[in-house]
């Protein structure tokens, strides 16, 4: 179990770090949403199903949608 959790944390941190380096903002947003999604799995493993649902539906889905709308209205690439 602990190995799976460690793996999840490592993937989450890698996604967060890759959000720094992506020049394409869309990729960075996807990476940030991956962080949220894995965080919601971790919330579930920490016995917080309410929070996991909130994070998955708000943090991962709606925030991604809002970000993508905003990027479509502005610029996609970081210069």
């Amino acid at each position, binding site marked *: 179990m602990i190995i799976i959790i460690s793996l999840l944390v490592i993937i989450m941190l890698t996604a967060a770090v890759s959000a720094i380096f992506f020049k394409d903002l869309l990729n960075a947003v996807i990476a940030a949403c991956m962080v949220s999604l894995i965080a919601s799995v971790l919330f579930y493993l920490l016995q917080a199903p*309410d929070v996991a649902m*909130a994070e998955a*539906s*708000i943090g991962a889905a709606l925030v991604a*949608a809002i970000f993508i*709308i905003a990027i479509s*209205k502005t610029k996609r690439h970081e210069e």
Partner: protein
Amino acid sequence: MKKIISLILLFIICLGIVFCLQDIPFGAAKTKVGHYYIDNGREETGATNIVTSVVLNYRGFDTLGEVTILFLAAIGLGAVLATLKKKGKRQIEPASLILKTGCRFLFPLILLFGAYIFIHGHLTPGGGFQGGAIIASAFLLVYLGCRERKINEVANKITESIAGLVFIVMGLIGLTVGGHYFLSNFMPKGEINTLFSSGIIPIIYIAIGFKVGSELTGIIDNLMEKS
């Protein structure tokens, strides 16, 4: 240079936190307030989901503030985008038949799921915020799938206001009857672990569900249409 300074700053912060964490061992026994809620939550509020009883009853005032913040964000976003000059009407490509039919099929199902989530907030995981977010995502689907459809802004505003007022009025009724406390759970608690139980909790959670749903829909609508 800036990067190095910020890294040093961050390491100092982290060092402080690590120092502090020695006193917060992971997985240790829970604290007295949490223990009290678990022991007495069912009798005092009638909800089997203790998180719900904390969110809506013991710390209900926070939730009122939280709903206010979402309302504030929706209004503030409207205010920020309102003075924007609009560039004519955008060309909207009509969606394909498959997409439209799929949306039409999925939309009521998602709404129903959202409603299920917030109606059962006091029994199972979930509640007004989660259910409201799911309802908003149903409207997002309509925006993406059937693009020529628009939500009724006036109806959205009215739903939002009435749901907020229900919360406040439930609190004020608690102030006048029962124990004379704001947001006190003055209604009969009913039989534990049934749908009609735990007093004002389901009513407030339904109001929150509507409010969060309409606010998030309003946010998406404002971002898509007004800018």
